[in-house]
């Protein structure tokens, strides 16, 4: 058994184990990578969760895009939630504000988070929000109702094939799981 290459074994095992550990880390690295990937390709219509700043677009008066607003409640969210405007024709580059209405239907304080999603996905990067209730969690006093504005602009670079952009918000009840 003199030819057993123990040293070679040891270094090989260490290398292979390092690959395994590295791949475990890679699994986690996929989380931020996926976010970047989504931003680039528009998978799932992920959209910015922080306010866009310094937007100065030239308004394109020759083109109109329909922007639709839809609202959903996750099954655990004991709320009412609606958009005051369902549909808007806008010129790309023009700023608009629409109001959303939400209400806590319980007798307890409620913390809720609205999650935006845009379809078609690739249009998401051209839809810029400068003000949105989804940027932070919302706290509702018992039975409180709120009217919340969203201010947005459509980037005039939006490719011509997109005629309608749908912005969806889903409210989730995160009272037991508030973000820190």
């Amino acid at each position, binding site marked *: *058994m003199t*030819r*057993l*290459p*123990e040293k*070679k*074994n*040891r270094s*090989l*095992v*260490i290398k*292979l*184990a390092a*690959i*395994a*550990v*590295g*791949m*475990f*880390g*890679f*699994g*986690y690295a*996929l*989380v931020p990578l*996926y976010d970047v990937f*989504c931003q680039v*390709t*528009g*998978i*799932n*219509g*992920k959209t910015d*969760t922080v306010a866009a700043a310094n937007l100065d677009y030239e308004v394109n008066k020759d083109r109109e895009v329909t922007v639709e607003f839809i609202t959903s409640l*996750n099954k655990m969210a004991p709320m009412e939630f609606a958009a005051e405007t369902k549909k808007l024709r806008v010129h790309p580059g023009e700023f608009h504000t629409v109001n959303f209405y939400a209400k806590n239907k319980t007798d307890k304080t409620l913390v809720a*988070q609205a*999650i935006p999603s845009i*379809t*078609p*996905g*690739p249009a998401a990067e051209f839809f810029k929000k400068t003000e949105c209730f989804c940027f932070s969690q919302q706290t509702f006093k018992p039975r409180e109702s709120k009217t919340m504005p969203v201010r947005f602009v459509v980037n005039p670079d939006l490719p011509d094939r997109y005629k309608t952009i749908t912005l969806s918000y*889903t409210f*989730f*009840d*995160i009272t037991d*799981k508030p*973000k820190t």
Partner: protein
Amino acid sequence: MSAVIAGHDEHHGHGPEKGILRWIVTTNHKDIGTLYLVTALAMFFVGGAMALVIRAELFEPGLQFVEPQFFNSMVTMHALVMVFGAVMPAFVGLANWMIPVMIGAPDMALPRMNNMSFWMLVAGLLLISSTLFMEGGAPAAGWTFYPPLVLQTGNALPFAVFAVHLLGISSIMGAINIIATIFNMRAPAMTLMKMPLFVWTWMITAFLLIAIMPVFAGAVTMLLTDRFFDTSFFDAAGGGDPVLYQHIFWFFGHPEVYVMILPTFGVASTIIPVFARKPLFGYTSMVFATATIAFLSFIVWSHHMFTVGMPISGELYFMYATMLIAIPTGVKVFNWTATMWKGAMTFETPMLFAIAFVVLFTMGGFTGLMMAIAPTDFQYHDTYFIVAHFHYTLVPASIFILMAATYFWLPKWTGHMYDEKLGKLHFWLSAVSVNILFFPQHFLGLAGMPRRIPDYAVQFADWNMISSIGAFIFGFSQLLFLYIVIKTIRGGTGERVTSEVWEDARKHGLEWTLPSPLPYHTFSTPPTKIPTEHLGGH
């Protein structure tokens, strides 16, 4: 680590320990190979019993035997048990038995780690099986564990996750061991491009395992922290995304299905030449096709998710990439056919199973190609068409090849010949019933039956009934296999087999140059002459 590597020498040079302790503390690759194979066979029957619960419930429309939640648990556990308990351990068992012998090594490179990875597998399997008896039932969200549904699992979730960790660590250790053995333990004359294809395919598989099992472990760990520690990897409410899980899972999951099929290719490439009495056609292209398939498996994962709402560019990319897999896979099928062409074939049981594998795996490949087409997958996805497809690539492919390998090498391992008549009976029963079982599922899927449902509309009744009949014939036929194996171990036909077992097998592999049964220790000194029939005898 040094303790693991060093100090296995003292076990060489004498026979096995006596009694039960032999099996618990063994570091001998043949003993461990046996342990893996026996475990795999036992789990094959456990998973098979679950499949029969499923097929019994689906025999007729209406719910006759089980509640839907339990049905979902059966679907989930059947897959987990078959994938992680039967097919993967069976191939590790074959690797343990055959790789050292095939490359002229005395044992695996890391014998103690070998023992540890086996017992970790057992622990993982016991843990996952124990979830069946927990409050809230076993996991019932499918073996893919998609959130948010999987987060509704009862007490079983953390146990299932830890079981996956154990099974993963066990596989990774096994894979490291196999790579170390192939890299460092080969007889000096055994260069890489002379290695038998079974060794080649297992080496590539081992690299796949090291790359993917940790990713899966990571994904299920994220599930665990999402459920218990308020993270939001997959929870939209916290900025996460359930679809992210699917991406991570299938990054693991697609190579994972090749983990189960690549060694299958290796065994088929070993068996067919022996019974065709011809060298394997295209050894080099076989090696490169295997490597290509392994590489492609990392860049096609989203074809499992065509309907989640990807942008068009993603759909098209994953469609094209997936279609590419047909090319190296085609090369393999053509090579096997060319190996048979102008041979002098005989049809002993291993060859029958190998031929059935080539034909039926190719059919699974065809349906795979159909599903690669994204627009048609919008119809096929999550239907029985998919169920038929992956069972064709797993049952009459991987499982049949495992049967073929057993018949092929069992005489070598035990020194006894199996009963050829019974073997052929087992083959024909299996080959016919597996098609009665799975072929109608193509029709069901095309006609609109979703997968993973415990009950169905009445227009699906007839094909389901036929499928269930096939399932019961197939399931009970495997008891015959068990009988044949036990009978062979206990003396078989009484006929003493030669060291070659099969005519001229000596030309095809080092294992046939050794006595039958294989001695407890083999190749304490490396062989100098390597059979090169698979290279055309050069």
